[in-house]
């Protein structure tokens, strides 16, 4: 465990050193206007790390994070402004604020505290809206939050004095608080990304449905990421307001969203190192465009380009250019510490994996459906289906296309929540459980069209599944052994998206098994495979099920596969169960023959 955090810690220190070095170097070389620029850059770096913690780890695009800064900024402005100024500017401020003056430390603590409360409220809204990676409703909520915050700041003049803003805020002395905060922010961001909660957030970012299927509840990791990001941004905002000595509604509005977002995505939203690179690049870029478009510089033939507002064109262009050409930014998901790992001391690499997955005693649980029925927009996809799978046995589910096989699995695993009938697991009614709760209760699954955490490594894919269930006290298999059994041991550090198809299929099954389920629902594990691969898959399914002691319900079109692996078979047609029994018996059944022949 200590090893895991060593490289990120050293990497963070180096990254921080680099940022401070660049900043102080520029300050030493430049004029007094460079001094201000450098201070702003370091503060923006803090805010961008805050953005990275949320957007990078959860994949939810937020336009509204600067608005959190507005709350912190106003708290610190209102509490630290001299009383004499307040009585002049905002004598009618509520709560008698005009006659309060606190120390900056107290004001900062209150600012961060209040902003975190706002963060909890916004977070509940995001969670409630079903926020997943790239979710539109969530992004709109953040946009509405930005807009509403700005409107309130503009219009609640008793408190904010409107668009002109508040001034005479005691200035920050020196850069030390900024530099220290930057280090703390970088460390917090890197540690979070490497933490268990961070990994779980990454899984939901990569594929929320798959994450739920291995028992990950997305709400906690998303909330933790949000509150950490809000905390960092609140402190950054306090520093920004104190550095400027004033606070207006436009400080933390659209233009600030634009600048910080551009910094984040140019460098790489998935990487703290990348986002710092983006801060430097965008700061340098906007400063250069500002200087060359100013009155002091004239370039013959380029006057048409070197005009005021060129920096906005630069920001928009940078954002658009990266989205079109390199959407994950300069560094994508690489961190400084990934290079460091080669040199840092670490535990002796385990050369060979454990020989086999430990074989736990098979339980005697049963998974049953009772009169399961599903209707989609008036179309009956499933009617009164009652099936039963014992732990330790392999049961097939076959039928022509559109027979309702996948719908059955989706209903059992909670993805189709709106269904008739009940699902009973080990004697308990689990009908109303959510997909992640069902997974933790012992129902694992794979998907017809593969749902891996594509941006995570092979080992991480399996590890996150393992983590979510282990935390619940489920008995889980050894993941190294699972990887070895899947033939993925040598490939464990590759990205899941880089595997070939057969390996991806096996990884998905290994991931489902890593949660230690009592039952595995497999949706066409051999889909798209050749004969040899299919045969290997038969062995792998059988071995995996036996090693974790799970019951299996497997859908497949390949009758040969079904016959060779299954103890019993259920046959569905038009949403109804038309036959059940041992494979060789079902094969001779007249109804089954006609269903299949009718299909062919």
């Amino acid at each position: 465990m200590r090893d895991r955090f060593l490289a990120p810690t050293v990497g963070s220190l180096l990254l921080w050193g680099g940022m401070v070095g660049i900043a102080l170097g520029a300050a030493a070389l430049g004029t007094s206007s460079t001094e201000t620029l450098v201070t702003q850059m370091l503060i923006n770096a803090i805010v961008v790390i805050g953005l990275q913690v949320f957007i990078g780890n959860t994949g939810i695009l937020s336009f509204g994070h600067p608005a959190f800064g507005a709350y912190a900024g106003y708290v610190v402005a209102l509490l630290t402004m001299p009383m004499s100024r307040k009585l002049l500017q905002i004598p009618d401020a509520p709560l008698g604020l005009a006659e309060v003056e606190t120390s900056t430390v107290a004001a900062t603590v209150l600012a961060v505290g209040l902003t975190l409360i706002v963060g909890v409220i916004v977070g509940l809204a995001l969670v409630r809206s079903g926020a997943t990676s790239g979710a539109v409703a969530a992004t709109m909520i953040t946009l509405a939050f930005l807009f509403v915050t700005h409107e309130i700041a503009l219009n609640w003049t008793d408190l904010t004095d409107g668009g002109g803003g508040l001034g005479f805020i005691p200035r920050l002395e020196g850069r030390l608080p900024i530099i220290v905060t930057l280090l703390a922010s970088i460390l917090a961001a890197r540690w979070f990304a490497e933490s268990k909660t961070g990994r779980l957030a990454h899984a939901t970012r990569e594929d929320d449905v798959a994450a739920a299927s291995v028992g990950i509840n997305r709400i906690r990791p998303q909330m933790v990421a949000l509150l950490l990001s809000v905390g960092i941004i609140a402190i950054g905002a306090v520093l920004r307001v104190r550095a400027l000595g004033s606070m207006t509604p436009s400080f933390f509005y659209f233009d600030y969203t634009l600048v910080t977002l551009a910094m984040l995505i140019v460098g790489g939203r998935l990487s703290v190192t990348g986002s710092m690179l983006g801060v430097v690049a965008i700061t340098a870029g906007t400063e250069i465009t500002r200087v060359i478009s100013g009155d002091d510089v004239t370039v013959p033939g380029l006057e048409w380009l070197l005009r005021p507002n060129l920096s906005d064109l630069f920001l928009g262009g940078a954002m658009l250019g990266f989205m079109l050409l390199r959407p994950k930014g300069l560094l994508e998901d690489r961190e400084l510490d990934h290079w460091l790992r080669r040199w840092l001391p670490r535990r002796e690499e385990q050369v060979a994996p454990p020989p086999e997955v430990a074989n736990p005693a098979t339980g005697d649980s049963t998974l049953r459906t009772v009169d399961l029925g599903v209707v989609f927009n008036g179309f009956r996809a499933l009617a009164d289906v009652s099936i039963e799978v014992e732990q330790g046995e392999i049961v097939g589910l076959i039928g022509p296309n559109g027979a309702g096989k996948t719908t059955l699995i989706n209903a059992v695993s909670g993805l189709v929540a709106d269904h008739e009938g009940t699902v009973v697991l080990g004697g308990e009614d689990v009908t109303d459980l959510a997909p992640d709760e069902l997974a933790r209760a012992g129902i694992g699954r794979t998907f017809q069209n593969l749902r891996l955490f594509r941006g995570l490594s092979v080992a991480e894919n399996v590890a996150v599944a393992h983590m979510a269930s282990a935390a619940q006290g489920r008995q889980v298999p050894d993941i190294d052994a699972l990887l070895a059994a899947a033939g993925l041991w040598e490939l464990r550090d590759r990205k899941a998206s880089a595997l070939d198809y057969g390996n991806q299929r096996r990884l998905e099954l290994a991931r489902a098994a890593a949660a230690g389920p009592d039952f595995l629902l497999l949706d066409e594990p051999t889909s798209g495979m050749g004969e040899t691969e299919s045969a290997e898959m038969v062995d792998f399914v059988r071995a995996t099920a036996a090693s974790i002691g799970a019951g299996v319900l497997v859908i497949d079109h390949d009758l040969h596969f079904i016959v060779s692996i299954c103890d019993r078979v259920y046959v569905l047609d038009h949403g109804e169960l038309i036959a059940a029994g041992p494979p060789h018996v079902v094969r001779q059944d007249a109804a089954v023959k006609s269903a299949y022949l009718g299909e062919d």
Partner: protein
Amino acid sequence: MIEVAQQVVDGLGQGSAYALLALGLALIFGVMHLVNFAHGEPVTVAAYAVFGLALLGLPWWALALVAVGAATLTSIAIEAVGFRRVRQADDFTLLLTSFGIAVLVRAAFSMWVSTTPRQFRRPDWIFDTVRLGPLALETYDVVVIGVTLVTLAGTWYLLRRTMFGLALRAAAEDFDAARLMGARADRVISGAFALAGLLAGIAAALILVRRGQAEPDMGLNILLPGLLAAIIGGLGRLEGAVLGGFALGVAESLFRAWILPNSLSGLTDAAVFGLIALLFIFRPEGLLTSRKAERV
């Protein structure tokens, strides 16, 4: 009672532009799962085209046609230059691409035209009123609602009774299949952007007749209510988008007139958007949609 009716008509007038923009957003979302943050930019371009040609002394109806034409071309161009390259990308990339385009257009007008609003002459009839029984209605509202209804009827005909409409609805219905159509998908998507641009152009004409000015922020400012309307109706649902637009307009009008005290009327937009944020919280899929089962 009469006052309520008048506020409602006023709201419908305001909501007309939202409805037309929301319908365009819904069309685009349907064919490429893109929430188009750049959908306000055709309005900005139309405004500046009108500003430029108004200097030549064109009559208002010719300027209205200019607005429609400029917006349509802008929308087609944005798709061809920008979105065509990221069609297969994830939602995150799509969202930020459209945001980048919006920022770029805004910056271009700030740089090369002006950061401050540019005025042009408005037709005289917009301040007239017509009496309809006990109601005194602004001519402007009547014209806006009339034009919008005709436009919506035309759009409905196009979508329901022509081959183009069929292709578009098919693409919206089965997004994955539409992606596989290849060259034909190009035409359908391009057509959707053209139609969305046309609707945005009509919205722009209606707004410009009243406002008589062009400014760089226009597109982003008008986009937000359009987007909210589209989401209120359930993104991708065409009827929902239209209803969402009118509902938003009426809600704003009623809020401004009664619900908020005068001292807080500056907070109308904040209150309405706050309410809508609440709506997303309880019905993230919008008012009209039933949650569709995701294919897994």
